[in-house]
């Protein structure tokens, strides 16, 4: 009987939740922080940090090209009442400016107090060099696809926690503890508990960011046992991928490859949106043949035909990957995303 009552009340609440003024979950939601995120991956991380204090939603869809999203009126109305607008920054989501401006919510304009560039202070790749001034033409502030490295994802989470605490100082402790918990879960998922206990995640993180994690793991001995033997989690799972040569369509996979030891040797598109010319394709085909490249990584929002054309001329295989949370069905959390990408890659190399 009690069960029936509970279900009945639940149904009633559901029915009335659409009626304005009825004090249900909607009224409770009103005192949550409304956090608009440009990308679903930021929404996923903001949800991990914010818990029940935050209502996070994403503007781009998971399978959409994060560089180009049409700023529609719906997106603008979505951020009109938002407290925060989280973006990666680094000129990845240039469309976010149009959405914010169109919403009329001046707190979220570029430079406003509610606008958060989550990649701030994260160690980046492909920053134009002070010495040679090379590179940097594609993404002038460095490669913005930082979220595919678990270490940098922790840094994103820390930045998000700081932003949430500033927006709601009363819950600062709550956000800090959830952020620490998220970092711990990422550490265990990535390195495995034993390796973290032996070496500490801070040191491991620095080696990932320096790009020499695998040399460090192989060359460091502790009590007569090489450190690599203690690796668990994604590090252990991704072992067959280490040193595998790959090329990518767009520079989305730079951070992922650094973290998981894939050897990225080339990029197909010369500039975003410009199809490669015949010599560029010939160069890539030669590169794939000479270096015995096995994999061509293409994000699922790009047209795979160019990559397939190259694969048809060589022995390489095309792997179409989601680079976002919600990029494919079933990929709901950050952990799902890395798990899913690893499974696809391992399947492609036949491990």
């Amino acid at each position, binding site marked *: 009987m009690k069960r029936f009552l509970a279900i009945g009340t639940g149904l009633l609440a559901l029915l009335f939740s659409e009626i304005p003024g009825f004090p249900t979950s909607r009224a409770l939601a009103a005192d949550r922080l409304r956090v608009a995120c440009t990308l679903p991956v930021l929404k996923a991380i903001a949800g991990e940090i914010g818990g029940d204090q935050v209502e996070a939603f994403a503007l781009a869809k998971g399978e959409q090209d994060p560089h180009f999203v049409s700023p529609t009126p719906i997106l603008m109305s979505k951020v009109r009442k938002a407290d925060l607008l989280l973006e990666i920054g680094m000129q990845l989501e240039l469309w976010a400016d149009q959405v914010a401006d169109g919403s009329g919510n001046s707190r979220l304009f570029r430079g406003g107090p509610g606008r958060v560039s989550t990649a701030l202070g994260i160690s980046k790749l492909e*920053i134009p060099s002070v010495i*040679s001034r090379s590179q940097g033409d594609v993404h002038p502030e460095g490669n913005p696809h930082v979220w595919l490295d678990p270490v940098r994802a922790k840094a994103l989470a820390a930045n998000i926690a700081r932003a949430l605490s500033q927006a709601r100082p009363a819950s600062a402790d709550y956000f800090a503890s959830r952020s620490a918990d998220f970092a711990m879960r990422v550490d265990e998922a990535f390195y495995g508990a034993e390796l973290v*206990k032996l070496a*500490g995640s801070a040191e491991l993180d*620095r080696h990932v960011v320096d790009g*020499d994690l695998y040399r460090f793991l192989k060359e460091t001995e502790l009590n007569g046992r090489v450190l690599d033997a203690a690796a668990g989690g994604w590090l252990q799972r991704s072992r067959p991928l280490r040193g595998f040569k790959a090329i990518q369509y767009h520079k989305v996979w730079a951070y992922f490859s650094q973290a998981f030891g894939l050897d990225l040797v080339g990029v197909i598109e010369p500039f975003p949106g410009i199809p490669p*010319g*015949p010599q560029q394709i010939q160069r890539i085909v030669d590169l794939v043949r000479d270096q015995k490249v096995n994999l061509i990584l293409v994000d699922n929002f790009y047209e795979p035909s160019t990559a397939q054309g190259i694969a*048809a001329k060589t022995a390489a295989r095309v792997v179409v990957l989601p680079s976002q949370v919600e990029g494919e069905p079933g990929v709901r959390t950050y952990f799902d995303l890395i798990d899913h990408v690893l499974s696809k890659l391992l399947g492609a190399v036949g491990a």
Partner: protein
Amino acid sequence: MHWLWAPLTLCLVMTGLLGYLGLHIIRRKVIFVDLALAQIAALGTIYAVYLGYDLEKPEDAAFVYAFSLGATFLGAALFSLARMRRERIPQEAFIGIVYAASSGVAILLLSRSTGEGEHLKSMLVGNILLVTWPQVLKTAAVYAGVGALHWIWRRPFFLLSEDPQGAEARGMRIRLWDFVFYATFGVVITTAVSKAGVLLVFCYLVVPAVCAMLISERLGAQLGLAWLVGLLCSAAGMFLSYHGDFPTGPSVVAAFAALLSTLACVMYVIRSERPRRSALRVAVGAVVAALVVAIPLQAKKSPESLHGAHAERLEQALFSTEEVTQIEAIHHLAETRAPGAAESLGQLLDRTQSDRVAEHLAHALATLGESSAVGPLQRALGRTKDDYVKIEIAQALQALGDDQGRRILEEIARSSALPLARAKAAQALRGGASDPPPAR
């Protein structure tokens, strides 16, 4: 180089049928009908995508193709109905409206389906460089079929294009014949557009026909000339694309434009009653055009100089907001032993929040070996909580002759929570080589 043969062959196949159809299109004064039909076909495909069918899945391909073909026939029916008896509104206006409307609806549908914009782009852009032999052969087969129909019905089709009133007076059912014409035309266009893109298909359709009509008025000669123009421009465009490493489609388009403008000038001079004066005019025009392009070239910006102000730039880099940039500068300043480097690095150590930067700094300061660094190192030691960073700083202090380094190492070797940190500190105490953080 051998893989350019497939695209080149496709260009020749397209020349064969599009060059011929262009003669019809220009006679009918419906220059942009190909753009409109291609857009309608794309709309059909997008509708299928909207319904959840996947272009990439082989089992859905037939369904998607059927939608695209159905939409094309619908478009053909529209255009055959739109032919007005007394042309109050030009047919081009109607074609433009159909183009705009189908583009708009396509964007609306795309905003509700996944992978926004990408499907539309791939359908209307195409990359001729990557066509495969099976695709070329399939296109050739379709074109041979349509070509045969046009050979069998060449008389009614040309009568309809050249003199529709006369055709109607003779009792031809022009709506039906128009429908057949546009339907076959639509099939030809959509097959070509998916491989070569709208831009290139438009050029193949219009430029050879226009060139041929500039030179001759006889139909047979026009057809031969159109094929010749298409052939020349395909080859020239491929050559330009390969040797300049330009995208192939736009290169062929540029070749068409160059040939057409040259031919127009030549015909103008030849047909002129006073050829010398005309030639002079053309020459003056060419010089003016060249100047208009060349003069702004003088104002082209040169890339920023890489030399000079090297050390100064490095010092500035220490104030960058990017860790990577700071670390790069730290390594270079330590390597080059620039004057004042130890001081700037010490100041950075005092203000940095990052353990990673501190680790690199400690190593660099140890290399420089200047005792002025002891102060900043001691202060950094008090701030950090990370045992590995402490080890690095302690080693730097040791190298600079400060005794505190040894004490810190002993403490870490004894009581750190991390086994690896204990081992590292012990190794450092035994005088083992430290593990330098890698340069970028």
